[in-house]
Every structure is written in C-alpha cells, then in structure tokens.
C-alpha cells in the first residue's frame, strides 16, 4: 500500500503543525508502509486562502510517475482540497477566524460584506472537499464538535495524536518536592499564573519551569514577578532542556501543570505527564486538556485564579499517596483513550 500524507505549513516556523506529519510518516515507515509526504506552503491571510485552495485542487496526487497512490491522508487545512479517490482526513482545525473565532476579538476578518463573502467561500470549499473524504477523524472532541456545528459533518472518531515512538517518558512512582511545568514560555500558556499561585502553596514546595520564551525577555519578566511575590527562591527556570532531561524532571515531580488558554487539543505536555504516571493540573478554560484530565481522578481541573491553582498544587503536595494513585490513573488514561499509533494507523489506513 502506497500512502501519501499531505498537509500545509508555514516555512521557518518551528512546529508549525509539522510534528504530527513527521510523527505519522515515521510510524508508517517503521511499520514498512511505503509512505511519502507532501507539505505545501500556506499563507494564512484570510483574503488569499481561496486561490491557494484552488492551487491545491489543481495539483494531481492520484499517481506519481506512473505509480498508483492508494491512500491520501490529509491533515492541516486546506490540504483536503487535493483530489484523490481514497482520501481520508485527520482534521486538526478549520481556519478558525472564519469559524469559532468569527466575530470575536481573536479573529482578524472584517465583519462586513467582503469579510462575509470570504468566510462563505471558505465554508463552501471546506464543506465540499471534506465531504469527498471517505472518513474524517479529528484530533480532539472539541474539533469534532466544531466540525458538526459549522460543517454539519460527523467525525468518524477522535484520534488523539500519540507521542512519537521512542519517547523517553516512563511511569515513575518517585516523587520529589516540586511541581513541573514544561512548555514554550508564552502568555497563552500562562506560566505567570503558576508563579502567582506559589504564595498560596507550602514553603517546601518548589515550581520548576522548563522551556524558552517566544520573545526575548519573557523569562526575565517571570523572574521579576517571582521576585515581587517573594517566591523566587522556590521557582526554578531550567531554560531549554533535552527530551531526556524533561523525562527525568517529569519522573521526579509531584505533578505537572498545563495551563494553556482555550486550546483545541490536549497538548503533548499532558500526554508526557500521563506516560510518566503523573497527575496533571489544568484550568477550566484550558480547552483540549479537559477532554482527558478529570478533576480528582487523574489530576485537578481548577478555576484560573492564583488561589485555586495554589490550592490544587498544595493538595497534591500534601497527600503523596493520593497523588500517586492519581498518577496511576493518569497512566491508564492513555489506554482508555487509545492514544497509540497502532490505533491511529489502523483507522487511517482502513
């Protein structure tokens, strides 16, 4: 079986939606499936998407140099505009400003006749091209709901993206004196809230923040905040760390934080914590992580306030045996949601 994976990307942007493509491709190759990738550049200005969609429509990927391509798997929008008789979508999001972000402060499209016209074009082309797919999978229930609501399409199943094979995260029962938050340091991940929660936690509990900032000075800002709150001696910034080091720090933590705002999917950090058998604290407005983190079971879901977050952190710290039990449940969550590549490939290739 010859399988082509198609997606779009923005050159020069790290992790611009290409990780899921690379991982999928690697998993297929590891299983001896003849696969290749087509990654098309996409310029996301709302008034230039239509002609790029047409460009994708014109590219013929039904065959390559006389060899039949048996299956096309499309990922990021609007790669599903490509034509193929056996097309499957692993749908990760619409062009959100024309959908759920339309009319909110997060969208950039003008709410006038021109903006509406372009929005309608996107809706129409998504409606048509997605309906050509033999099957549609999404990467989260949030996205599946949105697909139902806006495109009237029922996803066949949610396929949660697993970690790449060979990842270093292993179940761990040891537990140190710190809460761990590894992530890109940026406002939407709310590392500042984690620091603001620290005054509301016991003096012996530390916070370890790993990752580098999107913009220069973002770590310094957090450091200033910790100083002002008098908790700098309890907050450690590791900077960039290797995956192996991340796994070590994850293995030794009391629990892990994932505080993103309104995300579409659960974020790899949550999954890394689950693989390490660690509970995850997330927030009621975090979005995707709420699909897999259940309050009091495999983590805590708390209000996005310093007091509530500090309270959740304190509770994990105060009762290590409870934290450990929650960690064990967190590890079982992976199986429960079938977050593994065998399951993903079985569906995408069936």
């Amino acid at each position, binding site marked *: 079986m010859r399988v082509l994976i198609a997606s779009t990307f923005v050159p*020069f942007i790290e992790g611009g939606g290409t990780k899921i493509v690379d991982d999928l491709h690697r998993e297929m190759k590891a299983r001896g499936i003849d696969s290749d990738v087509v990654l098309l550049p996409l310029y996301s200005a709302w008034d230039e998407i239509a002609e790029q969609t047409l*460009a994708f429509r014109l590219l013929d990927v039904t065959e*390559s*140099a006389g060899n039949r391509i048996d299956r096309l798997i499309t990922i990021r929008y609007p790669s599903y505009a490509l034509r193929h008789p056996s097309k499957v979508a692993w749908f990760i999001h619409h062009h959100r400003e024309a959908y759920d972000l339309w009319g909110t402060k997060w969208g950039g499209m003008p709410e006038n006749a021109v903006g509406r016209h372009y929005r309608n074009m996107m809706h129409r082309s998504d409606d048509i091209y997605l309906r050509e797919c033999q099957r549609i999978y999404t990467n989260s229930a949030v996205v599946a709901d949105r697909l139902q609501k806006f495109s009237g399409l029922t996803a066949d199943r949610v396929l949660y993206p697993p970690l790449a094979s060979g990842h270093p995260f292993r179940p761990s029962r040891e537990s140190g004196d710190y809460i761990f938050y590894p992530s890109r340091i940026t406002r939407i991940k709310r590392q500042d809230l984690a620091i603001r929660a620290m005054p509301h936690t016991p003096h012996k509990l530390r916070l370890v923040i790993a990752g580098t900032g999107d913009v220069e000075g973002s770590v310094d800002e957090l450091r200033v905040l910790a100083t002002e709150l008098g908790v700098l001696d309890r907050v450690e910034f590791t900077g960039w760390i290797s995956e192996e080091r991340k796994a070590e720090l994850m293995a030794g933590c009391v629990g892990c934080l994932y505080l993103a705002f309104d995300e579409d999917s659960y974020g790899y950090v949550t999954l890394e914590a689950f693989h390490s058998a660690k509970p995850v604290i997330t927030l009621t407005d975090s979005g995707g992580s709420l699909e897999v983190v259940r309050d009091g079971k495999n983590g805590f879901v708390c209000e996005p306030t310093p007091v509530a977050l500090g309270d959740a952190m304190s509770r994990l710290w105060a009762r290590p045996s409870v934290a450990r039990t929650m960690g064990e449940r967190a590890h079982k969550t992976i199986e429960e949601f079938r977050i593994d590549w065998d399951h993903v490939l079985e569906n995408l290739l069936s």
Partner: protein
Amino acid sequence: MKISIVNVQAPFIRGGAEYLADSLATKLLERGHRVAIVKIPFKWYPEEALLDHMLACRLLRIRSGDPDLVIALKFPAYLIPFKNRKVWLLHQFRQVYELWGTPWAGMPDDPRTRRIRDMIRNADTAALGSAKKLYTNSKMVADRLKRFNGIDADGILYPPLDRAELFHKAEAKPYFFYPSRLNTVKRQHVAIEAMRFVKSPFQLVLAGKADSDEYGEQLRALVETHGLADRVRFLGWISEEEKARWMSECLAAVYLPYDEDSYGYVTLEAFLSHKCVLTFSDSGGTNELIAHERNGLIVEPTPEALAEAMERAYANPARTLEMGDEAAKTPAELGIDWQHILDTLTA
C-alpha cells in the same frame, strides 16, 4: 537571510535535483542563513495536468513564512510569483523544447498538444525573463534558453559535489572506472562491447545499481557471451567512500551518457581525483567540461572508438595521468564550488 528553496517532487521518487536542493540547503545553513525547502508535487500526464500544475504554481503563495529570497530550481516551481525570486535552472520541461517532435517528447504532435507546448513555452519565457537573476546548470541549458525563449542567463552555476573532500589522488592501477546507475541512457553496454576489441590486459570496472533488472541481466549476458568475465567487473551499488577509493586508483574514468543536460557528477568526481575522462561526442553536457586531449578524450559513440581510446590511454600512462592533473584544475577554473555558488545566489 531567510531563504526558501523551491523545487518540485514526484512523491515516492528522489532524483538528482532533490539531492542538490538538500545540499544547497545544508550549505546555506552552514553560512548562517535560515532555510526552508518547499516541494511542489508534479505530475506531467495527461498533458492537461501540465497546465493545471502551472496554474497551481501561479496561485501558491511562497510568501508564507516571509522569506527574503526565493531560489527556484525546476519547472514549474519557478512560476511561483515572488519579488526577490532567483532561478537556478536545473530543468525545463525538455519535452516541449529540443525533444519536441522526437520519440522522447512523450506526446504526439497535434494541434492540441501544440497549444499546450506553446503555453508552457510562453509561461517559461515570462517567468524566467522576470526572475531577479537567472542561472543555469550548464551551457547547454543556457543555449536552449536563448534559442527557444530568447533569454540570456546571468551565468552558469555548475552544481558542485556534496562531499568533494572525499575525492583524492592515488597511485593508478590498470583499470577504467565507470560509476553510474546502469541504464540504457548511460550506455554501459557500449563500454562492455568496447572490451571485445581491447588487446591489452586492463579491466573495466562498473559500479552502480541497475535501474531495471532487465538491463542488468542484459549487461551480464553480454559479458558472458563475449567471454569477458575476467575483464569486466560489476561492483553493484557502493558507498561514496568506496567510490572515491575506486576512482582514486583508476587509470581514467569512463562516462558515456546520451545527450545529457548537465555535465554529470561522475566527470567532477574523476576530475577531483586527478583522472581524465573518456566520453562520447554525443554525450551532451559532459563535453562542456572535457576538452579533448587536455583533460579527457572525446570520441565517436562506437565500441571500436572507445576501445581505441582506452588502448591509447593505457599505452601511455604518463600522458594519461598528466591529463588527469590537468583535469584537477578544471573545477576551479569553472567556479565549481559552493563558495562561488552561494556568493552568487545570495549576492
């Protein structure tokens, strides 16, 4: 600088242009640039698909990621609009140029295909003529551009080897070396037939994998039929390191492609190993680098003529190796090095 290299891809197939794009990206990265390779899928049949892919390229936005410079390599990727677009032309669609009307055109000559041919030529003329800078990979391609599109290239940038440092000079042994994929266009069968006419005790060493099992078997049968088993050696696929060693110890290299667009890496590998090259008068691009009796021998495309050239090279090894030393100077003379190419493309 942020640089996007734009190329085309036939999924599941990797060719020379893709390796070159990778090398170019690596070298640019080493210079501290940020580099992205963008590959546009390409399918050239039925003929109408050519027009679809051309239009698609016009509609794509290589502006994505906000590059400072776009370097386009092949048809139809160079049609993608961008202000600072430079073209290092490795490939036009030859079928509608000098191959038109020949069996290699791959399409009949009728009013419908003629319209498609003209649309491609017109699009090429517009896109290549409007590039900020236009370089070709050979004089042949530059000449074609002038003849069919009326465009003067800004220069020729001969593609260098990715790992030039592997190739070196060593003591010569009595064999001729021909490393290349085995296929009819490379004409290894002619090299084997030449060995029938050879009297002196030297060997022909062929390295490379057969493109088709059929041709591989045909070559072996040829060796068998003419009782050349002790004179012709097949190495099969070998590593770059092994190739460099075989090249360093040969008396001279043999490279016999039919009408190639570019000079072929074999020629360059031989030159860097201080070896002259035996080639044919109809080999195309190789003749741009090889000057007869200076750094190689260019002979008529027959087994007899090749046999005679090999005998001459064997009879006077001092002269042959002198031509090899001369050959080693050629790459620098033609500016075949990454330094020159990067300077030119990023100027």
